[in-house]
């Protein structure tokens, strides 16, 4: 608790500090490459035959995903707090790479916790983290995925709290993490709102984003919450809800308290956390950031899921039609857009958050398709 109170205080001070905000904005522009483009995907729009589909190109941010927005912000915050060491958890490896990058930039020591199963399917990102000077710690307890990596990172943090900042990678965990991560990611929605007004002279009709912990979705949605814009969060349907092998917390879970937050959770009747499955490591997680259940309860955001098969098909579709290979996580959002757009009229607008690029998944997808590289 004392560490969380200290973090909240430091963050609130930093967010009021104009010098800190200036430094962050400068790095967003010159280092991350923001603003990322809002791209009108003409060929996929034609292919789907309905609403105009725009892609918010977070895949073009430095390190290849939206994760850097938060990691860099928190690395700056850690430096300001006088912490010499960063730790982070990672699922797909994108947040691990982003946190390692932030640490390298600030000259901080860095350790990344990653489940052994995820290390296998995201071997490329493991090497990238090491290249960036981080130590990758293999977590081989529990389900050996993201949730276990978070457990280990929290254990490390409680042990080394005096010199270490925990760079939580998503809008999850105890307060103030969900707030901090949402705020650092909200740059996505702020830019998208301005960009769509410039391009179309009006707000979009619908936003679509994939939801693991839910940071890219919160980042896009946050700027539009007061507007008349429909929003859809897409969870990992895995092999289907009936199969039990999925990570669709709303479709298959119930309220629970886990890793310091109250939210929706995939659990058994005794409150033990169930194993999850998704083709994408970044969505393969038993719970969801606590603001999502709130937005769902007030009927502001709708949640649905896409299966592994649908995501894999969207992965191929976007590659072929637009020359953009999405991360498997983002492919879940593309899959949902492919269902929605044809039902909408041609003058309606959908923005899909293309939260990351798919290079990291190419090997894994080849393996699934039985292709030897």
């Amino acid at each position, binding site marked *: 608790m004392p560490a969380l109170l200290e973090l909240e205080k430091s963050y609130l001070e930093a967010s009021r500090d104009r010098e800190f905000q200036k430094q962050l904005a400068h790095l967003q522009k010159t280092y991350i490459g923001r603003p990322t483009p809002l791209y009108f995907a003409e060929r996929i729009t034609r292919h789907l035959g309905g609403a105009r589909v725009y892609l918010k190109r977070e895949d073009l941010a430095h390190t290849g995903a939206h994760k850097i927005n938060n990691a860099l912000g928190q690395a700056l915050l850690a430096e300001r707090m006088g912490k010499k060491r960063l730790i982070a958890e990672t699922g797909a490896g994108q947040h691990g790479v982003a946190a390692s990058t932030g640490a390298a930039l600030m000259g901080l020591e860095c350790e990344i916790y990653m489940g052994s199963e995820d290390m296998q399917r995201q071997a490329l990102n493991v090497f990238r983290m090491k290249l960036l000077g981080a130590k990758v710690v293999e977590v081989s307890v529990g389900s050996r995925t993201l949730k276990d990596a978070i457990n280990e990172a929290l254990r490390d943090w409680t042990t080394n709290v005096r010199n270490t900042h925990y760079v939580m990678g998503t809008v999850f965990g105890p307060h103030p993490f969900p707030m901090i991560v949402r705020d650092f990611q909200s740059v996505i929605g702020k830019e998208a709102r301005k960009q769509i007004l410039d391009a179309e002279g009006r707000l979009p009709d619908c936003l679509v984003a994939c939801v693991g912990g839910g940071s890219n979705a919160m980042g896009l949605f946050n700027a539009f919450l007061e507007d008349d814009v429909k929003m859809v969060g897409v969870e990992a349907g895995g092999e289907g809800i009936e199969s039990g092998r999925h990570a669709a917390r709303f479709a298959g879970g119930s309220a629970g308290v886990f890793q310091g937050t109250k939210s929706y959770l995939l659990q058994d009747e005794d409150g033990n*956390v169930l194993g999850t499955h998704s083709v994408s490591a970044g969505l393969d997680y038993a719970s969801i950031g606590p603001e999502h259940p709130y937005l769902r309860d007030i009927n502001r955001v709708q949640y649905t899921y896409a299966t592994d098969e649908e995501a894999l098909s969207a992965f191929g579709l976007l590659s072929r039609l637009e020359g953009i290979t999405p991360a498997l996580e983002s492919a879940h959002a593309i899959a949902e857009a492919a269902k929605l757009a044809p039902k909408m009229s041609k003058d309606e607008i959908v923005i899909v958050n293309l939260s990351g690029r798919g290079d990291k998944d190419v090997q894994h997808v080849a393996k699934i398709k039985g292709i030897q590289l």
Partner: protein
Amino acid sequence: MNRIEKVFKKVKAGNKKAFIPYVMAGDPSLERTAEIVLMFEKCGADIVELGVPFTDPLADGPTIQRAAERALKAGVTLRKIMGFVKELRHRSQIPLLLMTYYNPIFKYGEESFVKDAVDAGVDGVIVPDLPPDEAEGLMTRAGKANFATVFLLAPTSTEDRMKKVAKASKGFIYYVSMTGITGSRLLLDNSLRESLSALRRITDKPVSIGFGVSNPEEAGSVSGLADGVIVGSAIVKKINESAEDLEEFVSELRRAIK
């Protein structure tokens, strides 16, 4: 007065210290856990801390994580542990404290949890991932049933925090000997002494030290600083690695804590 409070009243009056050994319920079976609790009592334990297995034990190190995995594999749940305690009460009246993460209680329902625990003969609960700030509901229900709620303090706790935890704790205050998880290395230094004397100035509630007490020698030296000593990982390790030495080890711990 709750049975746990009575224990501390008695040890204080006798100028002694309470010995609180820990066992994970159902590791590897509930039958074995019953034998171990009875052995603890025979060796002179004052209170037994009974672990409830959970899939994601955030505050625990590898020894207790693995014990939880074995207990879960044996199908042990909070509900089964209630039945287990009810049975055990025919054979032992040693005060029992459940150590459980919050989600199993949340899923069980706070009200039913306290009611069933009291009915079964459980004397109190420690919930390492529930700070007093979030525990109002549980505390109210526990208070009505004279059920102990033990909260944790860490070496990083500020004076405000100490006041809050001391006020919320019923039975005793669990002082975590270091920053970190169960079973890590104990470091007895001046800051621990200073922090404990600060706590003593704030409260006259009993204080027990746990996390990282791994042998009789360490147990002896921390017992000088507290009213009770909790030993967990070291015992769990013995149970699974060299059970033949277990009883002797527990007796030595008892003798050292004075």
